[in-house]
């Protein structure tokens, strides 16, 4: 007896979708396989198609678990199609790959097997993070591994599931803006937050409790629930901001200031002011804003932070949405706590570099590396190397690190005096081609990140 006609059709349809997927996978050029995380996904999809197809062939409609198995295959096929889209968007020809490896390195102290896939976002919604991805990946892996027919080598490959697989998006129009890509640290922060389940405790200020209780009886539950959802969503954003500062220092703050100097609050994101307040506290705690000890190449930073916080202030009490207003007041009251929790986590996992931590390996003078890198940029040289002189007077160069490289780039770009000095490398008199200078600065920073990556890979093969 064959299967019911409908069931036959369902299975043929599924089989056809899997074959289409396989064809589409093979159509992606071999180039894509050289982006590490894209290659991992590519292999995972290939192995999963094999596993799921075999399962589909062997499933018997008479089995008790038939319905569950087929529905599961349908779900996984949908997920595989979605994953294929990310592989296509994460092609190395388009995405600056050097920054991807550097970001993966930063996350490694927290999640050693972490992977980051940077994709393009074609909508103007800027940088983004795909939250639900980890579960989808696990669903695919579970389904593929369950089948015995999977070749052991492939099974082994599939079993190497990353601790964190963050898919982050950068706006297609900003592909060459390497300095702005410090904003990716915020998106990585979301991944860390999810993996480590960081949820800082917050305290309700009296005013907020009072106002919540004033809601009419029929509305109280709705207002409370909206308030909770909004506060939690905004808190997650703030924790990601705090972690981004832990990872990269002032660079993510500067990126946010350039990208959204005065953003209104939304369902998912708090207003810029709240985010700047939080980042300002983090920068203070990490010794970037201590008035008596500001590093010379970051002398512009305290003023910029003050300008960002003051310039983004809006009359919260006049916001029409009560829940937005209360969530803002609630989280503003807890900015210190959120910053403390995130930084304490970073310190414990040794990912919080801070001003001292970053440079401890380089020299006694904590600011020496960044200072050197700024000098290199001002001589049109990529900021990729930190020079050290050993006790015996020998010069021993070291590769610069991503935080120092990005902050050196910002130190040149954000300081009007240095920026003018940089532009005048390329033209005499008043600056007329600032766009060209900006492109050249991005080139130098990108080359530095790339060089560090190449050196590391080269050293690893030695």
């Amino acid at each position, binding site marked *: 007896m064959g299967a019911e006609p409908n069931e036959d059709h369902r299975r043929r349809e599924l089989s056809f979708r899997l074959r289409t997927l396989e064809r589409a996978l093979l159509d992606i050029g071999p*180039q894509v396989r*050289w*982006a590490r995380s894209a290659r991992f996904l590519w292999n995972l999809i290939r192995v999963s198609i094999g596993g799921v197809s075999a399962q589909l062939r062997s499933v018997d409609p008479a089995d008790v678990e038939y319905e569950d198995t087929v529905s599961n295959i349908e779900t996984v096929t949908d997920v595989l199609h979605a994953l294929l889209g990310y592989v296509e968007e994460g092609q*190395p*020809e388009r995405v600056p*790959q050097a920054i991807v490896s550097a970001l993966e390195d930063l996350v490694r102290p927290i999640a050693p097997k972490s992977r980051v896939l940077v994709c393009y976002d074609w909508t103007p919604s800027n940088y983004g993070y795909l939250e639900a991805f980890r579960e989808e990946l696990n669903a695919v892996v579970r389904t593929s591994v369950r089948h015995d027919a999977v070749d052991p080598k492939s099974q082994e490959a599939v079993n190497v599931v990353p601790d964190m697989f963050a898919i982050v998006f950068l706006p297609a129009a900003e592909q060459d803006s390497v300095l702005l890509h410090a904003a990716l640290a915020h998106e990585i922060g979301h991944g860390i937050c999810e993996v480590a389940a960081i949820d800082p405790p917050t305290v309700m200020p009296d005013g907020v409790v009072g106002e919540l209780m004033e809601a009419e009886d029929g509305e109280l539950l709705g207002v409370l629930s909206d308030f909770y959802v909004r506060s939690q969503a905004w808190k997650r954003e703030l924790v990601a901001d705090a972690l981004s500062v832990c990872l990269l220092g002032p660079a993510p703050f500067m990126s946010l200031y350039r990208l959204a100097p005065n953003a209104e609050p939304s369902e998912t994101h708090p207003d810029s002011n709240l985010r700047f307040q939080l980042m300002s506290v983090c920068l203070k705690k990490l010794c970037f804003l201590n008035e008596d000890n500001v590093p010379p190449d970051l002398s512009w930073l305290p003023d910029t932070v003050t300008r960002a916080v003051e310039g983004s202030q809006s009359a919260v009490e006049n916001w029409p949405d009560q829940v937005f207003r209360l969530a803002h007041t609630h989280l503003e009251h807890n900015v210190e706590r959120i910053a403390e929790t995130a930084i304490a986590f970073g310190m414990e996992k040794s990912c919080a570099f801070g001003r001292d931590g970053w440079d401890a390996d380089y020299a006694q003078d904590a600011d020496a590396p960044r200072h050197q890198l700024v*000098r*290199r940029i001002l*001589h*049109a*040289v*990529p900021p*990729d*190397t930190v020079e050290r002189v050993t006790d015996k007077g020998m*010069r021993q160069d070291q590769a610069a690190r991503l935080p120092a490289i990005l902050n050196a780039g910002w130190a040149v770009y954000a300081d009007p005096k240095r920026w003018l000095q940089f532009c005048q*490398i*390329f*033209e*005499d008199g008043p600056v007329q081609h600032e766009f060209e200078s900006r492109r*050249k600065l991005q*080139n*130098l920073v*990108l*080359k530095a990140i*790339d*060089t560090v990556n*190449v*050196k590391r*890979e*080269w050293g690893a093969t030695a």
Partner: protein
Amino acid sequence: MILTGQEILDLMCEPLETRLVITPLLDPNEQVVTGAGSIDLRLGQDFVLADPAVLSSLDPVKQEENELAGYLRPVHVGLGGRFVLHPRQFALAATLEYVRLPNTVAAHVIGRSRWARVGLIIAMATFVHPGYSGCLTLELQNLGDCPIELTPCLTIAQLTVEKISKPQEIDKSQISCSVGPEFRTLMTSPERDRLLALHRNHKKLSADDQPW
């Protein structure tokens, strides 16, 4: 005067203002050939291929720059990847090393003889001006009969450095800060305008010569 390997090394240890910068040097001891007075350069990860299907011909006088840009297709090859250059194929590539020359020296980038012997031409525009900053663009062409697989980080070219008799003021256009192969404008704007005027004139005269 061509600098010896040791002189190149000394120049690379000068203060930043007057230093010869070549970065990254993945194997400094192997890349700086002391006896030969040159420094080996590696192949970078970015290539540019010409797409002949897009243009009927290259006409730098009549064509706009953006038309020429459409004629070129960038290709990125990851570390460990391969770029296959087929017989008679032409491609632009760049050195992995970013080079900055001080204003006291000029340089020549030349292909390594081992590659020339299998028919691979590596650089055609070989002179590097004093004060140049950026990765060096290489013009690759396979004159042999067999496809050649190229891998990023391969030592493919060499740089000889020459002292110039009198240090010059740096020409700022030489500070390109390029990080991949560059396809510059084929001619300057005034030159193009003049040639275009000549071209129109010629066309008009030809039309006037018609007997009908």
